[in-house]
């Protein structure tokens, strides 16, 4: 094993070892040991990821097996690593954000009795996520895929006495499983048709099947690659929370804030985006699949953004914003701009983790009150949180020169240039989404950091019905709920603010630095495959690109910038200047508000039709099928029938000699007559 191979192995193993030790012996160890061990593991993984990143920048690629998981027939399933530039970018993002979250957790979870358990889980998550991105085959991808799902389940339900948390984690797991259902079928199709689960082998064989068809429903012929890509994408829809499998993500906010940042914003939810980018050689062969991807992404980007506008829970605003941004990444995938999707994934990881952690800092400052209507004017009390939040929000809405601008504007441009079916709608959606994003982001920003200090007067709507789902249970926590009448919000300790600053820096500059090489250099050559003739989007984009500075300058006159500016100004006008206007709109358009408040009815529908339907069906199958038909008629019925027959036959055994003698005579007579005839 070479030095580099040892490093590859160490990167996932360090967090795993730390997680295992802390998980098994956490209760025996002091608290500081729990965080130092896991932080050391993740910091080591991060440092080594930097080494790996430098190595792949030299153009090296590693693709090799670690061990054979099992062999069956001619198929061999292996655990192995593929280390190329795509992997390296993901590894850096994952380990960096994870490290920040680890540090932040020291402050955020300081008073929690499950301290060491929490560290064990987030380290385990880091391991799983690394295995996912470093995989060189579909099987291990699925492994990591489900493992991150497991940790997500454990962490959403971290406060396991809260009814809402344990509802949310079950829901998250099951909805993800619906996605995995498609994903697994897709993997099975890949194995069947391409004869391997190894990426390299599959990508080299797949072009031979470009025109192949399958008839899954008799008398229909579907393109094989379209079917495979859509099945795989269903998996991505679950993990990356695309409509209609998005329903679990808002509820996942029941988990502690650090994991909302790490898992439900920066890393795990982007696994679907990563996966599709990794599968670019397959998706490129099916324009139908790309169209599907784009339309689903566009719907998510716009309609989930709308829901962000009416949320009053600070974490839920950020959660809907995450949904919407994941939609943007998905749209980019659909437009064959895979590198742009990964670019946005990276910038988003930084500024969204920042926004979540800042929200967590605000929540701590507000003594675990999450309702933005009770906040206001916090900039005076929480300077670092305020500035970093502002940076995060500006990056999110696409302010020129900031990271989010470069990635999001590139997505919009890419969609504009795309000509596949659905691109017209997608362009409208992502453009309108810019306005929506700016509006809800700055609605939150203004309500939290500016204006009147409303925590003094809050009483009435703290337990408003809308947020009952999120608010009603924080008193189970160790902390008391909200600020007292004479309390003042306070800035968080340095372990909390340091990660905020560390994330704010890349949120500011990473776009400017990375756009040139990542999108228009040769960074992803040989990793991401684009059929330039069929989908020339990136090719054309490159023509329009004349450096990061020029792009920012040019943007000042472009539609997205105007939309974003309009969003900010309108939110300022609505929530700082004339708060009566949004209230009036809410009253006037009651039906619309109710529709949005019910999240377009997805939850109700799922709860009634799928959950209720399965229980109903199960009950009937059991009650009628098992109990009544099989047991009632067949099993016990047979027993009764035998009982009845023997009841009749019993009369023959009367115990009277002359009955038996009579029967004997008849019998002899019958037998004789039978034989005589012959």
């Amino acid at each position: 094993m070479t030095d580099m191979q040892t490093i590859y192995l160490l990167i996932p193993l360090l967090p795993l070892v730390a997680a295992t030790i802390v998980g098994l012996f956490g209760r025996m160890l002091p608290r500081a040991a729990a965080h130092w061990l896991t932080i050391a593991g993740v910091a080591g993984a991060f440092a080594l990821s930097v080494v790996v990143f430098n190595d792949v920048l030299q153009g090296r690629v590693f693709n090799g097996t670690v061990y054979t998981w099992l062999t069956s027939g001619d198929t061999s399933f292996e655990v192995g690593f593929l280390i190329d530039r795509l992997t390296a970018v993901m590894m850096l993002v994952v380990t960096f954000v994870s490290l920040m979250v680890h540090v932040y957790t020291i402050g955020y979870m300081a008073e929690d009795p499950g301290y060491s358990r929490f560290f064990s889980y987030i380290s385990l998550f880091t391991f799983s996520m690394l295995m996912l991105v470093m995989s060189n085959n579909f099987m291990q991808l699925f492994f990591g895929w489900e493992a991150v799902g497991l940790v997500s389940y454990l962490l959403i339900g971290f406060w396991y006495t809260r009814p809402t948390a344990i509802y949310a984690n079950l829901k998250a797991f099951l909805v993800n499983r619906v996605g995995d259902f498609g994903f697994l079928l897709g993997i099975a199709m890949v194995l069947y048709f391409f004869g391997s689960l190894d990426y390299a082998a599959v990508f080299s064989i797949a072009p031979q099947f470009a025109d192949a068809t399958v008839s899954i429903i008799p008398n229909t012929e579907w393109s094989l690659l379209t079917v495979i890509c859509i099945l795989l994408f269903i998996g991505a829809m679950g993990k990356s929370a695309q409509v209609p499998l998005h329903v679990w993500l808002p509820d996942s906010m029941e988990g502690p804030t650090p994991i909302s940042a790490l898992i439900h914003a920066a890393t795990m939810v982007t696994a679907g985006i990563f996966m599709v980018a990794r599968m670019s050689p397959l998706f490129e062969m099916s324009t139908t699949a790309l169209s599907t991807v784009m339309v689903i992404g566009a719907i998510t980007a716009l309609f989930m953004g709308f829901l962000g506008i009416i949320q009053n829970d600070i974490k839920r605003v950020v959660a809907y914003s995450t949904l919407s941004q994941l939609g943007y990444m998905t749209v980019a995938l659909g437009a064959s701009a895979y590198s742009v999707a990964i670019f946005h994934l990276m910038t988003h990881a930084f500024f969204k983790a920042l926004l979540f952690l800042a929200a967590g800092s605000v929540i701590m400052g507000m003594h675990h009150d999450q309702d933005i209507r009770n906040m206001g004017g916090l900039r005076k009390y929480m300077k670092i949180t305020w500035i970093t939040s502002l940076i995060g929000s500006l990056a999110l809405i696409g302010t020129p020169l900031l990271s989010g601008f470069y990635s999001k504007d590139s997505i919009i441009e890419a969609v504009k240039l795309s000509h596949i079916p659905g691109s017209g709608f997608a362009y409208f959606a992502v453009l309108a989404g810019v306005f929506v994003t700016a509006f809800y982001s700055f609605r939150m920003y203004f309500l939290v950091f500016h204006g009147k200090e409303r925590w003094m007067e809050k009483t009435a709507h703290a337990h408003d019905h809308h947020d009952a789902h999120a608010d009603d249970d924080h008193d189970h926590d160790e902390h008391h709920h909200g600020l007292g009448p004479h309390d003042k919000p306070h800035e968080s300790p340095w372990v909390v603010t340091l990660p905020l600053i560390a994330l704010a820096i890349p949120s500011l500059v990473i776009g400017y630095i990375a756009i040139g090489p990542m999108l228009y250099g040769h960074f992803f050559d040989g990793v991401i495959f684009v059929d330039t003739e069929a989908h020339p989007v990136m090719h054309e984009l490159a023509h329009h690109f004349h450096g990061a500075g020029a792009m920012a300058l040019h943007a000042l006159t472009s539609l997205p910038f105007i939309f974003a500016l309009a969003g900010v100004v309108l939110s300022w006008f609505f929530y700082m200047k004339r708060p009566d206007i949004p209230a009036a709109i809410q009253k006037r358009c009651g039906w619309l508000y109710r529709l949005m408040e019910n999240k377009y009815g997805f939850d109700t529908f799922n709860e009634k039709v799928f959950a209720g339907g399965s229980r109903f069906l199960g009950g009937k199958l059991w009650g009628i099928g098992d109990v009544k038909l099989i047991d009632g008629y067949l099993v016990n019925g047979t027993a009764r029938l035998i009982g009845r027959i023997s009841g009749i036959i019993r009369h023959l055994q009367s115990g009277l000699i002359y009955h038996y003698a009579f029967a004997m005579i008849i019998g002899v007579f019958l037998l004789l007559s039978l034989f005589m005839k012959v």
Partner: protein
Amino acid sequence: MDWPILSLSIWVPIFAGVLVLCTGGDQNARLARWLALFGSIAAFLVTLPLYTHFNMMDGGFQFQEGHRWITSFNINYHLGVDGLAVPLIILTSFTTVIVVIAGWEVIEKRVAQYMAAFLIMSGLMIGVFAALDAILYYMFWEAMLIPMFLVIGIWGGPNRVYATIKFFLYTFIGSLLMLVAFIYLYHQSNSFELVDYYQLPLSFKAQILIFLAFFMAFAVKVPMWPVHTWLPDAHVEAPTGGSVVLAAIALKLGGYSFLRFAMPIAPDAAHYLSGFMITLSLIAVVYIALVALVQKDMKKLIAYSSISHMGFVTLGFFIFNPLGMEGAIVQMISHGFVSSAMFLSVGVLYDRMHSRQIADYGGVVNTMPTFAAFAVLFGMANAGLPGTSGFVGEFMVILGALQANFWFAFLASTTLILGAAYTLWMVKRVFYGEIGNAHVAALKDLNRREFFILSVLAVLVIGFGVYPHPITEMTHATVNNLLAHLAQSKLL
């Protein structure tokens, strides 16, 4: 190896069982327990050479032993194992150790008899897996019903009489038809040797009838829908140890026998009836999973979940490809660990609260955090999470099923959702939430004995999830042999 390892594997536990019986009444319970423990460990150790000395390249029968037994009918004491039987034998002897420890202080009445029943049953079941003579096989097969009948009937719950009679009649009636098939085969070949049957050409009609006769015996044991209704009742009434053996091993007798008898003796019928078998399997996977969802009794829920998982086994057999068949075997082994662990977990709760009703619990994690961690792990294994052994078999069977037909895989994959739904919903209602009631508040976490057995199972469940290679390595040559055999017509 000159030692008759298979004979030892069968007779050491039976002998140990008889010895334990000799300790007599409950005044010697302590002695009986220790004797049973040493006996079961010795019985486990003698099966290990089957793994260490197994020739992985050889798909035929190994460790063969043959003695003339009843010469007038040409019945022999003929033993031998292949890559299919060895893992199941080791699983059996291992499970017996677990069961003895699990019943340690829980069983207070007729201790010697309880322990002896399991030891003897273990030997008899190993006999089923090792016999290569039809009559020898049949005797072991029927004999193992007796200790199981006693275990449920004596140490069982309030409704045990109904459950035992149902269990006994169901399995016994099925087995009688198998005996008829054996007698027919004897008349055709003048032999009770299994290997002779493999080579015996049979007409299509005869094959169909033979297959159906076997089907009656094995389908009940597996159990396949619709002859499954004895299992939930038997599980609910059985003591924890009984449930463990029932789920971990007794069900595998059925699956094993399909591969050992029904399919290779009547391969043309097996192909002809594969659509029928696959249909029943898929009904088990989907229908039974839905039924499991609405169970209120934990043991019933796990029993239904077992049936649903066994659907994967029979599905894997009848799609006739290596992935499916090896996946089915892995599924049998894995289910041995996972279902044992699940039933033991219910036992842990039942011993403390004397209730199996989900509604009587809630928030157990608050008082039993260590136990809850185990329960979540085993729950995840039951839901087929990658990294646990529960995933491996399902994954392979689904991959294999798709090669036969997209819709087979589609229906089988619903287990991803339904399996997670019924398992984790139960976990949620039992373990999570606020402390449900005063009884839950008074619960004590695992004792050392319980911790030990659950840890061992946890290590195995994760171990085979991360590295299942040792199982498939063993079954590889055997499965290839079997599939090659099944591909050839045996028609007259």
